[in-house]
């Protein structure tokens, strides 16, 4: 199940990101699906899985981006790893925790991109922060928190059904 999910993410996210995701863009800024996926996987499955999925997603993203071949690979890999480390130290994860963590990771990743594109002068740098870095990290954080909220709701419901059926089973016995 897990390998199939990772393969689907690997070969499905970049095609969506490059084609139809612009419909979800606000002011031309789209969320970074690969960053969101790497951080959520890192957060829940640990740093190794986060790192490996991040690296793979980053490489595919790099192939279909005008930037240098290492940029997404390194940032997404690091995001997956750091999310795994963060997940280890968070005792009780909530939607707000995920929102703040992903926003921080997206800001960190965006700063690497900002340094790589080398804006000419402070004015251009501030423009890039205002028009790309901040809106994208907000988008990423909201999307990740939304997915987390849906997943926890789904798992809680599943757990409740399991507990209910276990309770009925013991009563019948």
């Amino acid at each position, binding site marked *: 199940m897990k390998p199939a999910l990772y393969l689907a993410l690997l070969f499905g996210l970049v*095609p969506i990101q*490059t084609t139809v995701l612009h419909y979800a863009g606000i002011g031309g800024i789209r969320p970074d699906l690969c960053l969101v996926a790497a951080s959520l996987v890192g957060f829940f499955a640990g*740093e190794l899985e986060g790192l490996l999925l991040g690296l793979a997603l980053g490489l595919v993203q790099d*192939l*279909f981006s*005008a930037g240098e071949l290492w940029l997404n690979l*390194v940032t997404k*890999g690091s995001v997956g790893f750091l999310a795994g480390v963060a997940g280890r130290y968070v005792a009780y994860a909530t939607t707000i925790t995920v929102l703040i963590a992903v926003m921080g990771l997206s800001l960190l990743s965006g700063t690497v991109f900002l340094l790589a*594109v080398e804006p000419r002068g402070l004015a251009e740098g501030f423009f890039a922060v205002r*028009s790309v870095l901040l809106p994208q990290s907000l988008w990423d954080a909201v999307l990740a928190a939304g997915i987390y909220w849906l997943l926890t709701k789904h798992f809680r419901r599943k757990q409740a059904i399991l507990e209910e059926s276990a309770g009925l089973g013991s009563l019948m016995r």
Partner: protein
Amino acid sequence: MFRSTSGTRRVTLVLLALLFSALLVLPTQSQGLLQRIGVPLAPIVTLPIEAFAALDHSLRDVWEGYIALHQVHEENQRLRREVELLRDQNSRLREAASASQRLTALLEFKGRAASQIIVAQVIGRDATNWYRAVMVNKGAGDGVRAEMGVITPAGVVGRVVKTTASASMVLLVTDPNNAITGLIQRTRDEGIVEGTTQGLARMKYLPLLSTVRAGDRVVTSGLTGGFPRGLPIGAITSIDKMEGDLFQSAEIVPDADLTRLEEVLIITAPRGESDAAALSTQPLQQRKP
């Protein structure tokens, strides 16, 4: 769910450290290695990209053909009800006619142009928000190489920066990382055309004594890059002349509508068919750079 043990954590850290060291110490070799790793991956990803691109085109057609017109429909409800059926029937034909018109224009332009060109379809955008780039459905397998110029009949679009077997990334003329040599048609002054963060283009390094003014047309100079001389880039809208500066610069609005790109032309041989043919018949040792 699965949680890493301290052993896997150590493995992760070692992997990360190795990757960073390799990228820092051997940047060129690492890029080559990553490119090689990406070779088998790219065609697999290109397939869903093309499928999603087709879906994107259909969605756009639906948006332009139906939803955008819905507001007008509300205003003219009674009249629209009468013509709705015909409009629905004609919508498909109109789209076909529009595509045919665009392709005819491209073919005519291809016939007129002295350079060797390949027609490509825009299938996607850059995978990040940091670059103004589009993806086209022609790649290394079709003879497309990095640094080749990309145009539409309206003007310059950008240049190819990366290729896979069946797709290429085209960095638009409005991206700050792009630089094309340009020439002002009226004054014959040359300069470098770069993109700006605001999504326009700027012509830099114009001589202080140049009489350039708003409205002047800028074309490619043909000195560097994959463009022949004389292709339209855009029109100057304002001039920046700062006191103490050695050069002046001018803001340009590109002629090509870069927000609505559908088909583009990739220039594979900017010096013209005859030159390119002559070059290809020359023995390798006689070729001059």
